[in-house]
């Protein structure tokens, strides 16, 4: 379980998160939507401590994150992150990108790594790209590899920071398919996204953020159909009207 309590975060004079609270139980798939600058990505990055909060607390599996390096690394090993710009390691093959962390941290040997990488590539549908380099792959393929890399550590949680925002439209679908499959398998996920239809179909809960706060939260059907908050309504209208 991930518990975010009243967190605040400022960048210089700009306060990006204003007392944000969120609880994610095991098995939950939470979609976070909202306009640019609402703090969605920042909140996500605070959870795996890529950003440090100025106030409030974040607890993972009951233990509060307190700034201890060892603890942070352990949490990150149990929490996969998928970035908007993939961030694959360009000098390593697909195989090495996926196998790097298990090899260094879990000290897995080749006999264990081969089937692991194979299974993950199968899962994301890219078994034949094992020896390719990231530069040789399309955006959609790179992002799927990035997902496989994050899954290699067998995390209990997966964080997605606008996973399809940097992709050409025709490549978005193949990535969403993989994420949806993960959701169906029961992975606990927080997905920051602009893909409204995807959020509606896949999430258990949708969280709407604006101006550094969570202004509405609820079941996808209810929130999309009949939003309570004015700003939610306005946002959905401007986004879905175009989709």
């Amino acid at each position, binding site marked *: 379980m991930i518990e975010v309590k009243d967190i605040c975060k400022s960048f210089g004079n700009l306060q990006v998160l204003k007392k944000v609270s969120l609880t994610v139980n095991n098995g939950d798939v939470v979609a976070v939507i909202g306009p640019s600058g609402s703090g969605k990505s920042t909140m996500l990055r605070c959870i*795996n401590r*890529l950003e440090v909060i100025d106030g409030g607390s974040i607890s993972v599996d009951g233990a509060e994150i307190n700034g201890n*390096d060892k603890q942070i*690394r*352990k949490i*990150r*090993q149990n*929490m*996969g*992150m998928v*970035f908007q*710009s993939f*961030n*694959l*390691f*360009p*000098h390593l093959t697909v195989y090495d990108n996926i196998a*790097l*962390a298990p090899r*260094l*941290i879990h000290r897995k040997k080749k006999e264990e790594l081969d089937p692991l990488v194979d299974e993950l590539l199968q899962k994301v549908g890219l078994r034949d790209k094992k020896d390719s380099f990231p530069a040789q792959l399309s955006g959609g393929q790179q992002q799927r590899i*990035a997902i496989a*890399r*994050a899954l290699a*550590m067998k995390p209990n949680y997966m964080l997605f920071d606008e996973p399809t925002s940097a992709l050409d439209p025709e490549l978005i679908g193949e990535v969403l398919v993989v994420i949806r499959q993960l959701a169906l398998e029961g992975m606990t996920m927080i997905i920051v996204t602009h893909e409204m239809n995807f959020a509606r179909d896949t999430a258990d809960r949708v969280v709407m953020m604006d101006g550094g706060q969570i202004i509405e939260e609820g079941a996808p059907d209810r929130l999309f159909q009949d939003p309570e908050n004015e700003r939610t309504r306005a946002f959905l209208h401007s986004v879905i009207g175009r989709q």
Partner: protein
Amino acid sequence: MDFSWLPAYGGMFFEAFFLTLKLALMAIATGTVLGVAAGILLTSRFRLIRGIVRVYVELFRGSPLLVQLFMVYFGLPHVGVNISLNMTTVLVFTLYGGAYIAEITRSGIEAIPKGQWEAAESLGLNYFQTMGHVIFRQTLKIAFPSLVGFYIGMIKDSSLASVIGYSELVKKSQTIMNMTARPFETYIVVGLCYFIICFPLSKLVSYIEKRSEAK
């Protein structure tokens, strides 16, 4: 112009040429070790470490090599430290090269997109694992042209060691020049020796640069 003396002195030139290469290679090796270490320290999150290394780098990049040679060669005995000419020369070139290579290394590391660090950290890798497996190899690729370019410069800079009496090509050629009384031709040959090493190397560097840009 008269090069008839060349066959007689050819052997001496050859020997002296190798002395220059020996010095240059040694300086390159030690300078790189120091420089890379200093460059990594320049990216440390501790202000004090960065500050100390920065002072060293600024000083040795902000003054002429000749002055550095004089300072160490004349200055150390003056404060009671007596080391051989060989060691003095290698020491100065190491410090000089280290400062420039530190800057090259630092800018190479800082050129790596932040996303690479974030991806490695998100996987739970620690600083050393991240540096060793993800960052450093990419740094090498980025810094390679500047690094080799600097090495070529070191080969030419080694000529200044002659001023403090170190035996390399220029120093030896002065002896030859005195014996043949033909400074013009002598220095043409000396220049040629440097040229046949430096010219192909610098062409190689531009070739590699063009190739990596074309990709």
